C-alpha cells in the first residue's frame, strides 16, 4: 500500500519534471500518462475504500519532533483521487486541443505539479504534509492563472488569488500548530479519538477558526469569495480543473477531515451553515447579475461551494461517517463534473463565436450553428439549475431533505435561503443555455475561428464529463448506492418522483421562482458599466499590497549604514545579555587555553594592524585588502589552536570575499570626502566600539567559563560509532545536522538565483 500511495503522488511530479526537458509537443503527449497511471493504480482500490476500509501508511519524518509524513487512503481520499485523476485526464486532452502552441512545457509542468500536489493533499494523513501540498496547489494555481505574466488582467487575477489563498494557507499553518499542540499529534486519523481532550482545551476555538479560515479562503467562501472570479483570467481548461473541479474543493475536503474532530464543538456547525448559506446567496446573486459567461460560471461555483460547506453544518456529528456526510460525494461529483464540462463548453463557444459576453450572445441565434454544444450546455445547465431527471436534481433534494430534518433554531431561514439560492441557480442556468443560444438574429461569420480549425476533442471531453449525470439520472439508485456511496440506501428513480411531499413542493416552488426570475431578468436586466464586486476586490487587493509596501518601507528605511547600526546594536545587546545571566565559576583548567604568547604576538599584530589601517585608509580597495589581511591573521590563530578545518575555511572565505568585493568595487564610483557630520561620526564610532567590546567580552567570557554541558562532548563521542566519521565537524554538517545544511545550501541557491535575476537579468535588458 505504501508503494502505491507514494507512486500515486510521485507520478505527476515525475511527469512534471520530464515535461520541462521536452519540446512542447512531446510534453503534451507525456502529460497524458500521469493521470492515466494514477487511475490504473487507484481504481482497483476503490471498492474496498468505498466500503469503509482505511489504510494508513506510517512514514517517519522527524520522529524526534513528533512529525510524520503519514498517508491515508480511505473513502473520502480515494474519491478525491479518482476525481482529480479522472477530470485531469480529460483536461489534459482538452488542453492539447484548446491551447495548441500556447501550451508550453512550463504549462504542462505546472499542470502536472498541481495534479501531484492535489493528490498529495487528499492522501495526507499528517496535517503538516497536508499543509505542504496545500501551499503547492496555491503556487501551481498562481503559475497557471498568470500563464507567463504577459496579460495584465491575468497577472492581477493571479496575484489576487495568491494573496487570498496564500493568507488562508498561513492561517491553516497557524491552526495546524495550535491544533497539534492541543492534540499532541499532527496525524488526522488519531485526532478523533482525542476529540474530547481537544474540545476541552481553551484554545480549541482559536484552532478551529484558524483552520476554517484556511478552508474558507481556499474554497472561496464569503468573505474570501472574491478571488475566484478574478482567477477566471486563466484559460478554460485551467478554470475547469483548478477553479471548479479540484482545488477549490480542497477546503471542503479539509472540513470533511475536521468534522469528526470538531463536530461536537458548539461553534462548528452553526459557523459552517451560516457561512455556507451566505456564500450560496452571495454567489448566486453575483451569477444572476453576471454578463460574462465565465464569470457567471465562477460565481455559480462560489454558490455551489457554499452548499457543500453548508452540508457539513446540517447533519448531526453522529451521522458524519469517516468525514463524509450523506449526499456529499454525490454533490461534489455532480458539481465537479457538470461545472468543469460547462467551463470547457464555454471555452468552445468563445472560440466559435469570438466572445463570451452575454450581452452580445443574447441577440444571436447560435443553436442552429452549434447544435452539439447547445445540447451539451443544455444538459449542464439543467443539472446546474436542479431540474429533474439529472444528478443535479438529486443533489438539491438531498440538501433540502437535510435541512428539513435538521433541528436547530433558524431552520426556517435556512430553508428560505436554500429556496432563494436554488431559484437563483435556475435563473443563471437559464441565462446560460437559453440566452446564449436563442437570440433573434443570425450570428455573423466575422467573429471567432472557423469550425474546421477546431479539434473535436473540445466537444468530446465535456460530453464524457456529462455522461455520469445522464447515467445517474436514469439509474440514481444504482449510481449512488453502488458506485459512489456503497452501503447507503437511495431510492430508485421512480421513488424520487412519485410522492408529493414537502420536499417536492419546495422543489417545484424553487423552479417556478427561478423561471419567473429569469423572465424578469430578460425583461429588465441592463448591462452595467462595471460590476461592483470587481471594484470592491480590486480595492482590497490594492490595500493588501499597500500595507505590505508600507511595512517594507518601515522595516527598510534608510541606507546601508542604518541597517548596519541596527544589526550591530542587536549583536552588542545580545552579547551583553549573554554575560549578564550570571556565569559559572571559571573552570580550573581554564589556563590550558592560553597559547605561547610569543607565537601569538605575530598574528595578533597582523590582525590589529589590518583593523586599524582599514579604518584610516581612504579608498575602498585598500580597506578591503587590509581587512582581508586581518582575516588571514586570524587564520594563523586557528593554526595555533590546532583547528585545521577553521584554518581552511577562514582562508578560503577570506579569499573569495576579497575577490567578490574587489569585483564589486571596480563598478562603484570613488569614495568622495566624508560627508558625515561630526555627531554622526561620533555615533558610528560609539556603535563600533560597543560592538567590538561586546564581542571581545563575550569571547573572553566563553573562554574562561565553558558551558556546563558542552554539546561537543556528546557529538565527539557519537561521531565515530554512529556516523562512521572521524572528522566531527563534517559529521555534524552532513549527518547530525544534515537538514540544517540542506536548508543552508537552499538559501545559497536562492541567493545565486537572486544575483542572476538582479545583475545578469539587468545587464541583458540593458543590452537588448
Amino acid at each position: 500500500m505504501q508503494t502505491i500511495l507514494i507512486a500515486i503522488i510521485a507520478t505527476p511530479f515525475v511527469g512534471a519534471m520530464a515535461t520541462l526537458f521536452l519540446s512542447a509537443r512531446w510534453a503534451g503527449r507525456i502529460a497524458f500518462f500521469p493521470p492515466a497511471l494514477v487511475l490504473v493504480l487507484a481504481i482497483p482500490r476503490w471498492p474496498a475504500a468505498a466500503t469503509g476500509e482505511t489504510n494508513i501508511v506510517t512514514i517517519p519524518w522527524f520522529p524526534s519532533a513528533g512529525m510524520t509524513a503519514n498517508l491515508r487512503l480511505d473513502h473520502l481520499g480515494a474519491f478525491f483521487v479518482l476525481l482529480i485523476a479522472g477530470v485531469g485526464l480529460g483536461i489534459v486532452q482538452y488542453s492539447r486541443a484548446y491551447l495548441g502552441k500556447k501550451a508550453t512545457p512550463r504549462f504542462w509542468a505546472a499542470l502536472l505539479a498541481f495534479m501531484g500536489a492535489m493528490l498529495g493533499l487528499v492522501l495526507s494523513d499528517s496535517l503538516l504534509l497536508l499543509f505542504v501540498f496545500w501551499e503547492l496547489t496555491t503556487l501551481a494555481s498562481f503559475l497557471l492563472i498568470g500563464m507567463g505574466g504577459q496579460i495584465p488582467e491575468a497577472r492581477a487575477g493571479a496575484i489576487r488569488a495568491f494573496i487570498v489563498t496564500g493568507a488562508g494557507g498561513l492561517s491553516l499553518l497557524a491552526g495546524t500548530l495550535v491544533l497539534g499542540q492541543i492534540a499532541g499529534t499532527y496525524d488526522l486519523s488519531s485526532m478523533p479519538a482525542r476529540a474530547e481532550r481537544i474540545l476541552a482545551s481553551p484554545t480549541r476555538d482559536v484552532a478551529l477558526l484558524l483552520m476554517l479560515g484556511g478552508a474558507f479562503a481556499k474554497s472561496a467562501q464569503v468573505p474570501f469569495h472574491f478571488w475566484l472570479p478574478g482567477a477566471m483570467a486563466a484559460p478554460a481548461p485551467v478554470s475547469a480543473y483548478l477553479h471548479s473541479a479540484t482545488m477549490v474543493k480542497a477546503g471542503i475536503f479539509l472540513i470533511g477531515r475536521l468534522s469528526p474532530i470538531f463536530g461536537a464543538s458548539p461553534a462548528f456547525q452553526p459557523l459552517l451553515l451560516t457561512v455556507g448559506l451566505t456564500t450560496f446567496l452571495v454567489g448566486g446573486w453575483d451569477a444572476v447579475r453576471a454578463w460574462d459567461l465565465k464569470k457567471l460560471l465562477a460565481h455559480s461555483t462560489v454558490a455551489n461551494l457554499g452548499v457543500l460547506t453548508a452540508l457539513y453544518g446540517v447533519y448531526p456529528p453522529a451521522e458524519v461517517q469517516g468525514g463524509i456526510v450523506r449526499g456529499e460525494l454525490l454533490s461534489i461529483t455532480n458539481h465537479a463534473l457538470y461545472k468543469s464540462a460547462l467551463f470547457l463548453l464555454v471555452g468552445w463557444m468563445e472560440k466559435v463565436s469570438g466572445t463570451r459576453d452575454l450581452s452580445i450572445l443574447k441577440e444571436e441565434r447560435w443553436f442552429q450553428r452549434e447544435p452539439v454544444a447547445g445540447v451539451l450546455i443544455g444538459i449542464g445547465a439543467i443539472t446546474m439549475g436542479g431540474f429533474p431527471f439529472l444528478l443535479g436534481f438529486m443533489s438539491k433534494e438531498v440538501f433540502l431533505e437535510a435541512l428539513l430534518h435538521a433541528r436547530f433554531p433558524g431552520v426556517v431561514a435556512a430553508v428560505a435561503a436554500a429556496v432563494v439560492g436554488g431559484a437563483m441557480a435556475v435563473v443563471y442556468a437559464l441565462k446560460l443555455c437559453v440566452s446564449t443560444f436563442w437570440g433573434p438574429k443570425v450570428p455573423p461569420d466575422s467573429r471567432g475561428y472557423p469550425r474546421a480549425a477546431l479539434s473535436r476533442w473540445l466537444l468530446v471531453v465535456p460530453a464524457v464529463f456529462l455522461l455520469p449525470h445522464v447515467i445517474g439520472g436514469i439509474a440514481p439508485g444504482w449510481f449512488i448506492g453502488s458506485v459512489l456511496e456503497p452501503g447507503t440506501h437511495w431510492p430508485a428513480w421512480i421513488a424520487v418522483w412519485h410522492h408529493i411531499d414537502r420536499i417536492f413542493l419546495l422543489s417545484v416552488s424553487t423552479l417556478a421562482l427561478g423561471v419567473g426570475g429569469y423572465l424578469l431578468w430578460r425583461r429588465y436586466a441592463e448591462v452595467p458599466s462595471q460590476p461592483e464586486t470587481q471594484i470592491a476586490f480590486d480595492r482590497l487587493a490594492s490595500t493588501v499590497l499597500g500595507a505590505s509596501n508600507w511595512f517594507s518601507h518601515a522595516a527598510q528605511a534608510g541606507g546601508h549604514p542604518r541597517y548596519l547600526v541596527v544589526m550591530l546594536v542587536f549583536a552588542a545587546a545580545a552579547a551583553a545579555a549573554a554575560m549578564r545571566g550570571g556565569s559559572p565559576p571559571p573552570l580550573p583548567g581554564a589556563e590550558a587555553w592560553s597559547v605561547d604568547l610569543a607565537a601569538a604576538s605575530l598574528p595578533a599584530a597582523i590582525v590589529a594592524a589590518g583593523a586599524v589601517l582599514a579604518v584610516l585608509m581612504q579608498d575602498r580597495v585598500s580597506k578591503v585588502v587590509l581587512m582581508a589581511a586581518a582575516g588571514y591573521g586570524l587564520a594563523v590563530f586557528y593554526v595555533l589552536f590546532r583547528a585545521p578545518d577553521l584554518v581552511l575555511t577562514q582562508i578560503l572565505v577570506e579569499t573569495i570575499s576579497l575577490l567578490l568585493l574587489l569585483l564589486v568595487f571596480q563598478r562603484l564610483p570613488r569614495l568622495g570626502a566624508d560627508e558625515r557630520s561630526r555627531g554622526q561620526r561620533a555615533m558610528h564610532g560609539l556603535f563600533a566600539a560597543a560592538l567590538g567590546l561586546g564581542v571581545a567580552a563575550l569571547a573572553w567570557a566563553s573562554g574562561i567559563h565553558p558551558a556546563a554541558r558542552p554539546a561537543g562532548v556528546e557529538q565527539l563521542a557519537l561521531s565515530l560509532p554512529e556516523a562512521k566519521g572521524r572528522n566531527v565537524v563534517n559529521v555534524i554538517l552532513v549527518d547530525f545536522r544534515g537538514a540544517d545544511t540542506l536548508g543552508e545550501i537552499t538559501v545559497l541557491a536562492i541567493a545565486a538565483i537572486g544575483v542572476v535575476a538582479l545583475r545578469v537579468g539587468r545587464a541583458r535588458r540593458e543590452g537588448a
Partner: protein
Amino acid sequence: MNSFLLRQVARGVLPVAVLFAIYLLLRGHDAPGGGFVAGLVTSAAVVLHALANVAPSERARRPRVLGSVWLGLLVAAGTGLVAVAAGGPFLTHSHFDVGSGPATIHLSTTLLFDVGVFLVVVGSTITTLAAFAGGENPR
C-alpha cells in the same frame, strides 16, 4: 586583466586546485575538508582562470553554472529521500564497506550529500562572482 604571467599561472593552478578540491571532498568525513571547503577551492581556481583569460565575447567568459546549483540541491535532497524510500527518516545515511583487510574502502551516502553541497557552493559562488566580473562598467 590580460597578462601572460597570470594566464600561465592560472592554467597551471586550475587542474591542481581541482584535484586538491576532490581530495578535500573525499577525505572530508575523516579529516579536515568536506563539500563546502572543496567548493570554495574550486570556485577560487575557476575565477582566477576566468579573470586571466579574457574571452573574446562577454558570453563565453560568463560561466553558466547555475545548473550545478540545481543539480547539487537535487543530489543533496535526493540522498535524504533514499532513506525515506528505504523506510527510514529523511536524511538517514547508510554506510558500506567495500573490500576487506587493509584495502577496505569505506563508502557512505554522506559523501553523496557532500557532493551536493559542493555543487551548490561551486555553482552559486561562481555565478555570483561572474555576475560582477562582466567587462562593461555601468558608469
